């Protein structure tokens, strides 16, 4: 709070005081008052004004500067009302009261939405698990009664399973609750798990998978990592180039403070103008519009899951040549003591 602000704020008081001074002096002149009396009256009135206004200024300055600093340092700004010391002047006290009431009402509102979203997630989780039962049952039936048609059924069943998983992980990634477990996972195990799951599709599309250096462990949630890799594989399959033999290359490199997982395919790549947006919700881009149908959700969920677990994900691509995703897992020695 600066002096200028105060002057601007209280301009009316100053004007009325000056007018009052003038009127008093006019009267004093009219009654031929002693010049000494004029000076004394003037000085007293002036001092009165200055002392009053200085007091007002300092009081407000301390109060509002304090709020400002607290607000700047506060991580959840809506909790400011809890941090204010009541200022003991009328408008300040009133504002504090209103602020704390507004804050309380908002917290209640947030709590309600949080509860709703948690309930919704539980609901999705529960029903996705229910959907998985008939799918398992059908998979077994198709397997027990092998024929040409059962192979086709299997393919569709794996599609259903993939889509329900997307729903499940979307619900998980949007939720504020921490429902993953970070532990040491061998990258080769995650890679073989997800490759095995997609084996039929990969072979059908003649995709060669090469790996290198995956015998390292990283700190992550194994199930989430498999889902992430699964989404990347699904994207690769959609966007392979007809000019080359399709190939996916998964490799890992270990550094002193991190492990970097690289996932690269030799597909049609991503146009440079699309790259900054590919992790955004519902973004389909050039590839998604002209080629296979895209929902624009896969990579958004992938990014969300990575962020939740504290991994960094980035993309590098050249149109017509390749797409490469990089996931960085930090090392944390703290976990290893447990």
């Amino acid at each position, binding site marked *: 709070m600066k002096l200028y602000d105060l002057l601007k704020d209280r301009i009316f008081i100053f004007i009325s005081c000056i007018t009052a001074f003038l009127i008093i002096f006019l009267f004093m002149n009219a009654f031929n008052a002693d010049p000494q009396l004029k000076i004394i009256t003037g000085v007293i009135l002036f001092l009165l004004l200055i002392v009053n206004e200085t007091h007002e200024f300092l009081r407000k300055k301390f109060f509002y500067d304090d709020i400002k600093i607290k607000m700047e340092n506060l991580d959840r700004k809506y909790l400011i009302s809890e941090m204010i010391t009541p200022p003991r002047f009328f408008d300040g006290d009133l504002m504090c009261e209103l602020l704390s009431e507004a804050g309380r009402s908002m917290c209640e509102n947030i709590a309600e939405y949080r509860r709703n979203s948690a309930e919704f997630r539980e609901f999705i989780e529960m029903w996705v698990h*229910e959907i998985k039962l008939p799918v*398992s*049952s059908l*998979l077994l039936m198709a397997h027990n009664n092998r024929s040409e048609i059962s192979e086709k059924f299997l393919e569709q069943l794996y599609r259903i399973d993939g889509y329900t998983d997307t729903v499940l992980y979307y619900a998980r990634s949007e939720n504020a609750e921490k429902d993953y477990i970070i532990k040491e996972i061998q990258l080769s195990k995650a890679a073989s798990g997800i490759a095995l799951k997609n084996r039929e599709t990969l072979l059908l599309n*003649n995709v060669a998978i090469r790996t290198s250096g995956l015998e390292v462990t990283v700190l992550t949630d194994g199930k989430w990592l498999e889902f992430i890799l699964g989404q990347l594989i699904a994207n690769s399959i959609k966007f392979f180039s007809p000019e080359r033999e399709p190939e996916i290359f998964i490799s890992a490199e270990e550094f002193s403070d991190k492990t970097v997982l690289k996932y690269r395919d030799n597909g049609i790549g991503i146009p440079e103008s699309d790259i900054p947006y590919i992790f955004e919700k519902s973004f389909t881009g050039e590839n998604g519009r002209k080629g296979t149908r895209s929902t624009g959700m896969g990579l958004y969920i992938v990014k969300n899951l990575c962020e939740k677990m504290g991994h960094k994900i980035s993309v590098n691509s050249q149109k017509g040549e390749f797409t490469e995703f990089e996931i960085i897992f930090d090392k944390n020695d703290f976990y290893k003591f447990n």
Partner: protein
Amino acid sequence: MSKIYIIEDDRSIRTELSELLRNAGYETEAPSELENILDGMIAANADLILLDINLPIVNGEVLLKEFRKSSDTPVIMVTSRTSEADEVLSMSYGADDYITKPYNPTILLLRISAVLKRSSRSTANQYYKDLKINAAKGALTSDDRELILTKNEMIIFQLLFDRQGEIVTRDELMTALWDNNEFINDNALTVNVSRLRAKLCEAGYNDAVETRKKQGYILK
């Protein structure tokens, strides 16, 4: 013949799973009544138990914990819960493996046979005719010679050997290879089997691996 005890509350899965396992040469028991299931588990005297987590009366994890107090029969958890937390919990209660639904039936069979093998592994060495199987070294050895196999050939040989005299499908071989991070395609599998056959032939075991058209391979 190994006996597998299936605890599963979904009727359709239960019957299909029993059929799958019977076709694969196991004896199965799958009770439809899940009350006092703990007594049933112990009384069944099975070689392996497939246990669902979401059961109507009691939670599978709790059941496993109770069961482990009196028996060390191998247990594989089969569940539609896909969180790492459930897996960690199950493993800490003493599960031998954890598979999520919907599973690829071939993978399930592979895991079952792996767990059974682990639990019944005798210290005695495994022999194919007069060749000693040295999986760690990737070689088949006899007194006077040594057959060096590649990783792929060893995986194929081991699977054929475990089910000697039975047909092993190409699908099963592929699943086993991919499970071991060997992501090969159909042609490469054919090549690998031919190489294995040639190596065995060279060592004097003619026609050890027989091809059954459209079915798979048999180790004689």
